[in-house]
């Protein structure tokens, strides 16, 4: 995935280690919930067709837990490690100002999203309130249950990639008559293989004995008629 380098903004004052580890823990917990554990149990119920559609946060934020239960790699803080591709949402601003449309200044509140009135929203909370800023009609429909109904009733980020929003992720199931289920994540705006079209009509079954009987009868009749015609000429 291509990334754009965002301007680095150094934190002039180094945070005390306790505060840093607290943030790290928050991140770790958040990512553990979102990325490592089966998301179904944490947030969502299964839809009735048995599979789950979810935006994998671990596409950008791979997290590997060490033996101590903490992430083995340092999680990105601030903006220096972030290289995020913005599509569609790049209209929100020029380069870093686009990020600030939704994310709070990470120097102040890393890992938080911000609403126009200053309210902070943690990414583990109802992130959709941030989307509501622009997509208020869709948010209202989602609240009513009209939009994205019967999906895991989690946040908008659960279905849509907030950085490059497009089609949601749908996992393809195999053709109707096959056994076993394979799960593939499907990338956005690409065709996928749906469930198979209706099965073919049932074949016509004619009993073999009927075919034989018909052949015998037809040959007998043909020979009789042949004799009738030929015999006539002889007269």
């Amino acid at each position, binding site marked *: 995935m291509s990334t754009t380098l965002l301007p680095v903004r150094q934190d002039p004052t180094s945070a005390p280690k306790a505060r840093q580890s607290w943030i790290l823990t928050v991140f770790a917990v958040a990512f553990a919930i979102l990325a490592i554990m089966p998301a179904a149990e944490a947030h969502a119920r299964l839809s009735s067709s048995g599979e789950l559609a979810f935006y994998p946060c671990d596409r950008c934020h791979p997290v590997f837990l060490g033996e101590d239960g903490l992430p083995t790699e340092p999680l990105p803080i601030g903006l220096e490690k972030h290289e995020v591709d913005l599509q569609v949402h790049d209209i929100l601003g020029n380069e870093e100002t686009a990020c600030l449309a939704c994310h709070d200044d990470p120097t102040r509140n890393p890992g938080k999203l911000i609403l126009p009135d200053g309210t902070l929203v943690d990414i583990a909370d109802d992130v959709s309130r941030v989307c509501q800023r622009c997509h208020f009609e869709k948010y209202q429909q989602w609240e009513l249950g009209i939009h994205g109904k019967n999906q895991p009733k989690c946040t908008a980020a659960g279905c849509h990639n907030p950085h490059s929003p497009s089609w949601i992720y749908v996992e393809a199931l195999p053709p109707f008559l096959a056994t076993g289920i394979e799960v593939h994540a499907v990338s956005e705006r690409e065709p996928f293989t749906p469930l198979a079209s209706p099965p073919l009509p049932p074949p*016509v079954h*004619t009993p073999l004995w*009927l*075919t034989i*009987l018909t052949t015998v*009868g037809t040959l007998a*009749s043909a020979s*009789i*008629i042949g004799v*009738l015609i030929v015999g006539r000429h002889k007269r």
Partner: protein
Amino acid sequence: MDVTDVPATRPGVKRLIGVDFDLGALRTAGPRYWAFVTVLLIFTTLGIIGWIVFLTQGAGVMAQRDNTTWGLWFSNYMYYVGLSAGGLVVYASVHLFGAEQFRPLARLAVLQAGVLVMVALLGDLTDFVRPWRFFWFVVTPNPTAIFVYTGSAAAAYMVLCFADLWILITGKGGEKLAHRMTLIALPFAMYLHTTTAFVLALNKSRELWNSAVMVPIFLTSATASGVALLLICAYIMQHFGVLKFKKSMFRSLATLLATVIIIDLFLLLAEIITVYWPTAAKLGHTERMTLFFTGPYAWMFLPVLVLGIGAFALLAPRSTRHLPKIQITASAMYVVAIFFKRYTLMSMGFSIGTLGQYETPYLPSLVEILLAVGLVSLGLLFMTIGAKVLPLAVPEHEHEEAHYEPWRTELEEDDAEEAAHPGIVPERALDAG
């Protein structure tokens, strides 16, 4: 062997319900007759076996599937009903229009009409997986469903035809009753075939069929093919010595046939123009009609046009219209053409479904073919046995009871003209009148 009215005292003749059944004629029938009957019995038996297979193994033995919903049984129903109604037109014209030249055909025409509509109804019955559910037609019929009208009309028409035949043979009620029966039978035949056309036409969901011109096309095709079949039937009866007809009668039939054929072709042309004309063309309709010319059954529809126009071309010239070869060929061509027409009309209607999807073409399965052939054999069996057993010739005194017609002289002049042509074998006249 001349067949005339036989007195009841002749051996081998049984009188039942007032009709003299000449069973003795069966005993004296030759081996060729029985060989033919055997062939018919073979196919009828195969048809019955096919029907039993259908009843026991379910509808899967038919080739009809979800989107090709109706099959050979329905196109045959339309076809036989048409043939039946058409033959009756000839007979009815005797009484309604005073076309006395057709009177010798009277009993044969009515017998043919009755047998054909019986075969049509049996074809309907063979489509029922559970035939006993048929009684719901009588208990809760739906007045907006056209099937109710066509089914009841066919049943009533069959009864009417056989009753008419009985009246003709027994002579009960004389000319007046026969005349009145015609006044009922002919409109009923028209009504029957109109409702049959409506079964296809009154469906807004099927663009190809939803046209008012279906009704007149059906009526003209029916009349023409019925007349053609009657002509062939009459020739066959004459060939085997069962009946004797005048050449002038055949010529009149041929003229009638030519007239109706050209009307039929004209109506078809009108429909085609309406569908394809630039200011009238709709994609759904043109796509479906184009299948007639380029689709999987084009090989069956193009002959309809070729045979139809060819039949008319054969019959059009007045100088050759009297030739039996011409008449029989044209009639056979047209009978086959109308069968193809009914079949392609039905299957092309299904070729593109209601959701615009192309369906695989429908070809009847073996069981369906057996049923169709079995029913045809059954009909032929009725006609073959009826030819021997029933008194089909119209006796002399009935001719005399008819009113005087001035055009008899014209016909006799025609006969003399034909006799003057070389190559014509002069015929013994049936009566001297």
